C-alpha cells in the first residue's frame, strides 16, 4: 500500500474508517462525516467537540498503559483523527464463537482496563462490546467520542450498565459469565469497597429505565414503612 493512499474500510454511525499508511505506520483514518439531517452550525460544533475529546482521552489512556490505539494526527476542524491500526475482531462479532476460557480472559482484561480508566477519572461513555477489539490475547477499547472526565460515580456506572446491556442484547446466554469475570477484574484494581459501591449504582441505573416493576415496589415499600 502506498503512503497516503486511503482504502475505505467501514462506516459506523458517525464516522467513516479508512485504512492508510501514515509516516510508515499502518493506520486508521477516522473521518467524522457531516450529516445532512443536522443543522449546519450544530453539525460543525458537534464534530469538532467529538474529535477533540476522543483524541485527548485516547492519548491519556495510552500513557496510562491501556490497550487503546495510539493517536498519530488530529484535525478537529475537519473531524479527522489518524490512529494506530489494530488487527482483530470486534467482540460483538465473535463473542458467541469464543472458547469459554477466552471469554473469561477478555472479560477479566476489560474489567481491569475499565477500572484503571475510572480510577483516572475517565469514563468511556459508550462502553459496549461493539467498541472492543480482540487481537490475539489482547483486548483493545476503541471509540472514545462520547468519553470525558468526571469524578461522578454515575458516569462510571453508566459505562458498566451499557456494557451489560450490549451483551444482553446480542448474547443473552453469555451475559452472566462475562459480567461475573468483568467485575472480578474490576475489583482487582479498584478494590472491593469501591466495586460494591459501583455495583449498587449500576443497579440503580438499571431501575431508572421506563416502567420497571421493581422500582414501583421499592417506592411502595418506602411509603409504607417510613
Amino acid at each position, binding site marked *: 500500500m502506498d503512503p497516503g493512499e486511503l482504502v475505505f474500510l467501514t462506516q459506523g*454511525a458517525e464516522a467513516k474508517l479508512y485504512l492508510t499508511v501514515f509516516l510508515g505506520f499502518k493506520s486508521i483514518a477516522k473521518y467524522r462525516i457531516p450529516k445532512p439531517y*443536522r443543522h449546519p452550525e450544530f453539525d460543525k460544533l458537534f464534530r469538532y467537540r467529538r474529535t477533540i475529546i476522543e483524541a485527548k482521552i485516547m492519548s491519556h489512556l495510552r500513557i496510562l498503559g491501556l490497550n487503546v490505539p495510539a493517536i498519530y494526527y488530529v484535525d478537529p476542524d475537519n473531524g479527522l483523527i489518524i490512529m494506530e491500526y489494530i488487527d482483530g475482531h470486534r467482540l460483538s462479532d465473535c463473542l458467541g464463537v469464543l472458547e469459554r476460557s477466552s471469554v473469561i480472559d477478555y472479560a477479566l482484561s476489560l474489567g481491569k482496563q475499565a477500572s484503571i480508566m475510572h480510577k483516572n477519572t475517565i469514563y468511556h461513555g459508550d462502553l459496549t462490546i461493539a467498541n472492543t477489539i480482540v487481537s490475539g490475547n489482547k483486548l483493545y477499547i476503541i471509540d472514545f467520542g462520547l468519553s470525558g472526565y468526571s469524578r461522578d460515580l454515575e458516569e462510571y456506572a453508566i459505562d458498566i450498565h451499557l456494557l451489560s446491556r450490549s451483551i444482553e442484547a446480542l448474547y443473552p446466554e453469555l451475559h452472566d459469565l462475562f459480567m461475573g469475570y468483568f467485575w472480578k477484574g474490576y475489583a482487582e484494581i479498584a478494590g472491593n469497597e469501591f466495586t460494591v459501591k459501583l455495583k449498587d449504582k449500576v443497579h440503580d441505573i438499571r431501575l431508572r429505565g*421506563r416502567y*420497571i416493576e421493581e422500582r414501583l415496589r421499592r417506592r411502595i415499600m418506602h411509603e409504607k414503612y417510613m
Partner: protein
Amino acid sequence: MANADIQNLFVTQGKERALDKIIVLGIESTSHTFGVGIAAIIYGEPKILVNEYSKYVPEKGGIHPREASQHHMAKAPRVLRNALNKSGIKLKDIDAIAVALGPGLGPCLRVGASIARFISSYYGKPLVPVNHAVAHIEIGKLVNKLNDPLVVYVSGGNTLVSIQRRRRYRVLGETLDIPLGNLLDTFAREVGLAPPYVVGGKHQVDICAEWGNEFIDLPYTVKGNDLSFSGLLTAALKKARQAQNRIELGNICLSLRETAFNMLVEVAERGLALTRKKEVLLTGGVAANEYLNLKLDKMAQLHGARFYTVPNEYAGDNGAMIAWTGLLLYLYGVTIDPQKAFVKQRWRLDEVDLPWIPEN
C-alpha cells in the same frame, strides 16, 4: 409478520375454529385516549375493520390521571357502540377481546381493563393481555408490511430504539429520564404555548421553531445508546425565560427541537450501524412529527436502509393496534383469566415474550 406466515399459522393453529375469519376487538385506555378497534384476518388477509377513539384534552396543564379516567368512563360506551355500529360486528361474533393492560396510568388502565373483563366474562370470550408498547410496533409493522425493522418508538411516555431478537423486542437504547414527547409538551406548557399542544397537526414547538432562524448551543446528552432530556429541558426553559421577543423564543424552540431530535437520530443511527437492519420504523405519537420523519429518513438513506412511518391514525394511541396485537397473540394461544387480568402500570417492552419473533 408476513401474510404467508399468517396463512401457515391458520393451518396449524386454526383447525378448531372457523378457518376463514378471526375477529378480535381491542381496547386502549393507557393514557389520554380511550380507543376501540377491531382487527380481523379474513381469508388470510389481515384487516383493521374499525378504529374509534376519544381523546382527553386538558383545559390547562398536562394529563391529570383522574380527570382522564373520568373522561374514559364517560366516553367508553359511545366509542364502543360506534365501533360496533360502523363495523357491523356484534360482540357475540368476535373471537376474542384484547386489552392494553399496561404500561400506563393506573386510573386510566382500569377503565379499559374493567370493560374488557366484563365483555370477556359476560359473552364468554377469551381475554388477551396486550402490552401497549408492543402494539405500537406491531401496528407499524402491519401497515408497512415489515418483518424485521429497527424500531424507533417515540411518544409522550416512551422514547426507545428496539430490535426483535430471541422472542422479544430488545431495547437498544432508551431515555434515562423524560420521554421526548414529554420534553416537547412540558416546554410548550411552561413557556405558555400550550395547551393545546397540537394545532392543525403541528406541535406548538414546531410552530414556534418557524419564528426562529438561529441555532443556539444547548446541552446534548447521549450516554452510549441512552438519552437524557432533563438537562436539555432545564437549559431551554432557562433561556426561554430570558427571551425578549418571538424571534428569540423561536430560536430556542428551533434549537431545542434540533438538539433533541439529533440525539434520538444519533441513537437510532448507532442501532442501525450495529445491527445493519434494512428497515427503520418510526412509531408512537411523535411519529406524526414531520421534521423527525425527515431527519430519520435522511439518516436511514445514509445506511442504505428504507424508512417507514405510521399514518397519523395509528401513530397516537389507538384501539386498532391493541386489537391487531391481540389477534396475533390469540392465534398463538396467549390468553388470560379475567380474574387474573390485573393492570400493570409498569410493564416493559422487553419483558414480553412474543411467539412470532424467532428464537435466534
